[in-house]
Structures are given as C-alpha cells and as structure tokens.
C-alpha cells in the first residue's frame, strides 16, 4: 500500500504550487514531486498583436520580475527591428535590471526566507514570518524593507514606474536619465553598502547553524548555466551563455543565447504545467541543470567589481570546486546585490549617461527575434516570430524558474528522504520541504495577490483515500 502527503499550496513563494510525497507501507519516502498548478498562456494570447506592444504585455506576466520580462521582450523586439540600441540606452536598461534584481533578491532573502534562518525551521509558523521577524529582529526586518525600496526606487527613477515600468521600449528606453534621478540614487549608495555589509556578516554566522540543511538542501551534481561577458565576468544583461559541469569544467564553448534551441530541450510531464528544460546533448532527465544566483556565481571567472569579488573569493571556498548545495542560493543572492550596487554606481558615472539619444526607431525588418537576459532567478528567454506587418505569429518563453524545474523536483526528493517520516508529520519536517523550494526562489508568475488568503493543508492519505494525519496552516 502506498500513501501520499500533499503540501498545497506551498507558502512564501511567488505563485501557486503543491508538493506530493509518495510513501511506502513502512512510512518511508518513495518519491516526491513539485507541481505547478497555474497556467498563464501568454505565448498564445499575444498572437496577432503588434510586436512593439510586447514589452508592455509580457511585463504583466509577473509583478516581481516584470522588468526582466520587459527587457527580454524589448531585446527580442530590437532584433525584429534589426537595430542596435544606443549605448546609453543599454546602460539605462542595465541599471533598471540591476535595481529590479536587488528588489527581488531583497524580497526573497528578507521577506520570504530569513524567518527560517532567524526564527528557526521548527518555530511556530504563525510567527515564522517577516512580521515575527519585525518583533524579534526589527533592525533586520527594516533592512529588508529598505533594500527592497532602494531597488524599486531605481526602477521608478530610471524607467518611470516601480511596477510595470513604461520606460523599457523596443529600440531602447523611452526617456533619458535625469540629473535628479542620478543624484538621488547615488546619495543612497553609502547606506546600502553598509546595509549589505552587515547583512552578509550576520548571514555568514547564521549559516554555521545550518550544516545539515546545507548538506541536504538540493545538494547534488548538476550542470549550471548563466550569462558571462567576454572576459568571463558576471553579466546580468547581455553576453554569452556558459554551461559548466559539477566539477567546474566548461561543457562546450560559451554559446550565443540566440542558439538556445540547439542546446536546450523541453520535456513535458502530465502532472504539472511547468515544462522541464534539459541540456540536449545529455538527454532527459540527465541533462539537468540549474540557473540563477548560485549557478551564475559557479560559472563566472570573477564578478568584475571589487567588493563583490571579495565575497566571491569566500564563496568559492565553500566547496571543493563548484558550490553544489542549493542552500547557498541565499548567499549568492546577497553577493549579487553587492555586485549590483557597485555596477549601478559604475554605470551612473559613465560620461554619456545623460545622453538624450536613447532610442532607435524602426519597423519590422526581421521575421524573428530572440531576447535573452538574466532575471533574478536565472536566464530568461523570449523568442518571437512576426509576419510582414509586424504582428506576432508565435512566441516561446523559457522563464528562469522553469530551467530549475528538474533540480527543484530532485531537491524536494532529497529533503523528503532526509526529513519526512510518513508515520508522523511535524511542522519542521514540512517546512524544510517548502524551504528547499524557497532556496530556488521560484516565481510561478504574479499570482501571489492571493497568497495571504490561502491556508496550507498537508494530508497523509492512505490508498483508500482516508486521511490518517493532517497539518493545517494559515
């Protein structure tokens, strides 16, 4: 007789999903799966719309990584127009992207995951939240709010609006940067550097209490993929895709992201709406790979900015070669925030940053465009085809979280095997199963407006359908 535990919905992530854990008769874990239970369908309903509407429409996929979708979309449109956007426009897009990544990482690290680190995996779920944190560690909660606000304000100051900014357009940016915006961002930097310094300080100490989780939270060999610049440095906007194996060895040459279909396949399973991308030469599912902050720090030679590189040197000492544990996604997010702040400062000090030529104008000059950028959660690909009038005929999106689907499922299995005892469910046991998903910071699209209204119910069900144990949250 097999039994099944269902965690539905998973809390403190972006979107709707559930986890099922299959148990054997003796209560041991046989299998575990991460299901995504929502369907968006953007690829289908944009068909027939003019291509230049795409950044505005595609940005609506998500309320957190909206900038990333707008950027990938705008880059695909740049290709359809067959234009090279002005240098200053590219710099402004980079700044916007970095601001967006900071706000998203702040949300993931402080709001969603830090209650686990600071209040404990076993703590009362009613208090294991940012509000609980505000009562026990108000200075850390304030830092989370401050860092997210800083990132949001960058997006607003450079691209016009915090949410769904209208400044990212095909051909570049809608408006040049103002002196007022530049000065306002620069003025905040010393405070943000200090905030990140003290956050890294306490988090590195906190990690010492999580040796077991580090060993068991998605800690297995996979490939890693991300974008690097020509010098092999971290690049979150443009560059070539690099894939490495679990020993740090490059798998083939760095390749143009436009040729992603030569390297990446997509498998489908009947029990989830999320596809399973894999590295084609190794097949499915052996071609499992990870993207996002952990992957990006694994594939690069250096970050390319001094403070981030200091932290990067410590990061590289965590494992023998490549850092395999998904728990370290959290650490990688903080290092990327340091990098992002340094890079924003560099870009704002470029001599032509106030150039008013920030947009190339053209109609459709190519029937196809592929836009790739690094979103907070990993590589994001928008691929469009248009007719002669520039109307969309086909779209394919590979969203960052999707790349990690195979790895997230394997991570859930690993944690379930280590922690779950099907004969008796405990809060800490179930929270760890959720927490390993939170390390990946999956963004299952912008459906979290309902997040707070949903309870979490975990049921242990026998083969006849009878509930033999239950835990309810929310």
């Amino acid at each position, binding site marked *: 007789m097999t039994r099944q535990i269902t965690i539905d919905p998973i*809390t403190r992530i972006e979107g709707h999903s559930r986890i099922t854990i299959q148990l054997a008769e003796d209560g041991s874990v046989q299998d575990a799966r991460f299901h995504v239970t929502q369907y968006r369908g953007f690829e289908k309903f944009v068909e027939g719309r003019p291509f230049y509407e795409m950044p505005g429409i595609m940005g609506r996929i998500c309320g957190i990584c909206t900038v990333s979708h707008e950027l990938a979309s705008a880059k695909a449109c740049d290709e359809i127009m067959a234009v090279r956007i002005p240098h200053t426009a590219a710099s402004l897009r980079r700044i916007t992207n970095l601001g967006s990544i900071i706000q998203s990482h702040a949300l993931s690290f402080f709001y969603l995951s830090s209650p686990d680190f600071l209040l404990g995996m076993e703590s009362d779920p009613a*208090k294991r939240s940012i*509000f609980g944190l*505000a009562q026990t560690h108000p200075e850390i909660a304030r830092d989370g*709010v401050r860092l997210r606000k800083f990132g949001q304000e960058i997006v607003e100051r450079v691209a016009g609006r915090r*949410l769904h900014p209208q400044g990212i357009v095909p051909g570049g940016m809608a408006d040049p940067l103002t002196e007022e915006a530049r000065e306002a961002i620069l003025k905040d930097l010393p405070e943000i550097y200090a905030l990140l310094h003290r956050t890294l300080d306490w988090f590195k100490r906190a990690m010492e209490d999580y040796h077991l989780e580090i060993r068991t939270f998605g800690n297995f060999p996979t490939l890693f993929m991300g974008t690097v610049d020509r010098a092999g440095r971290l690049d979150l906007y443009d560059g070539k895709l690099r894939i490495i194996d679990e020993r740090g060895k490059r798998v083939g040459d760095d390749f143009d992201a436009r040729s992603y279909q030569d390297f990446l396949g997509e498998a489908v399973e009947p029990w989830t709406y999320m596809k399973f991308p894999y590295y084609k030469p190794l097949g499915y599912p052996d071609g499992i790979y990870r993207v996002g902050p952990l992957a990006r720090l694994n594939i690069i030679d250096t970050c390319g900015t001094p403070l981030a590189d200091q932290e990067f040197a410590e990061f590289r000492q965590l494992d023998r070669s490549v850092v395999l544990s998904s728990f370290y996604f959290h650490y990688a997010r903080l290092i990327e925030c340091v990098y992002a702040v340094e890079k924003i400062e560099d870009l704002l000090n470029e001599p032509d940053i106030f150039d008013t030529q920030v947009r190339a104008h053209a109609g459709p000059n190519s029937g196809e465009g592929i836009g790739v950028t690094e979103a907070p959660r990993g590589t994001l690909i928008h691929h469009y085809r248009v007719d002669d009038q520039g109307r969309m005929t086909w779209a394919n999106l590979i969203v960052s979280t999707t790349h990690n689907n195979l790895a997230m499922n394997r991570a859930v299995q690993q944690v379930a095997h280590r922690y779950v005892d099907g004969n008796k469910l405990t809060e800490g046991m179930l929270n760890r199963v959720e927490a390993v998903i939170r390390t990946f910071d999956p963004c299952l699209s912008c459906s979290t*407006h309902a997040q*707070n209204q949903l309870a979490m119910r975990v049921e242990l069900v026998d083969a006849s359908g009878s509930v033999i144990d239950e835990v309810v949250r929310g």
Partner: protein
Amino acid sequence: MPAAASSMRSFVADAPILVIGFGNPLRGDDGVGWRVAQALEALALPEQVTIITCQQLTPELAEPVSQASLVILIDAARGGIPGTIDCQLVPLETQPPPTLGHHVEPGALLAYAQALYGSAPPLWLWTIMGEAFESGDSLSPPVEAAVPALAHVLCDSIHEL
C-alpha cells in the same frame, strides 16, 4: 460624511500628513483613489501634505506611514450604492498575515509601521463605492461625480486641522 470628516480633525496637529490614493487605474472604478488624489493635488494644500498614488499598499509604505501624524487612504469599495462616500478609522491589525509580498491590508500596514519604526498614526480609509471594475481607464458616472466632492471634503478637512 461631514461627521466623519469632523472626527478626523480631532486626531492631528500641525504635522506631516500622508495621503495615499490606491487601486488599479486600468480597472474602471478601481482607479478612483488615483483620481481623487490627483484632484486633491490640484487644490491648494498645506506644505506638510504629501500625496502618493500606487496600485497596491506595499510593505515599503510602512516607513512613510510611520513618519506621518495622520494618514488618509483613498480607495474604491464595492457592494453598495455607486458613488457613495464613506470613511472609517482603521484599527491596527494585531495578527497580520504571516506572509508579506505584493500587498498588505491597511491595518497590517499600520502594524508594520508600529513594529518596524515604532509609530502607527491614525489612519483613515476613505472610499467611494464603485460599480464597474472591468478593463478601462474611465470611471462610471456616479463615481466620476463623487471625485471632486471627496477631494473638496478632504481639502477642507485638512485646512481645518
């Protein structure tokens, strides 16, 4: 309405006032908070008044809320006679929801202001009852008519504080 407006006066001295008009301006009457805020901005207001418009209340608003002596939220409501203006003093939420992401309720926003920054000022929620929340950037006629009325009530109330 006049009684509610006068009760707001008893809570504030000559100190910062934060006005937040919120809602989705692309969903018909849901955008009425923005429209009232914009109408209010066009009126002569004291210098200590700051006006913000946003689609949702987010945790990041806890800091400016905590720095105000009075907060006025303007939102759409549903389920009554379209165009009806109402107002209520929002109590501090003692058990805010455990997760925090895109959106917080007014009482939870106060709770965060108190927990994070040590101050939760009186917060009044003013609403105009809507009737059409479909896609579109225009208001229904009764809601449109209520916009200048509420803007003037708020402006007069602020001047009389």
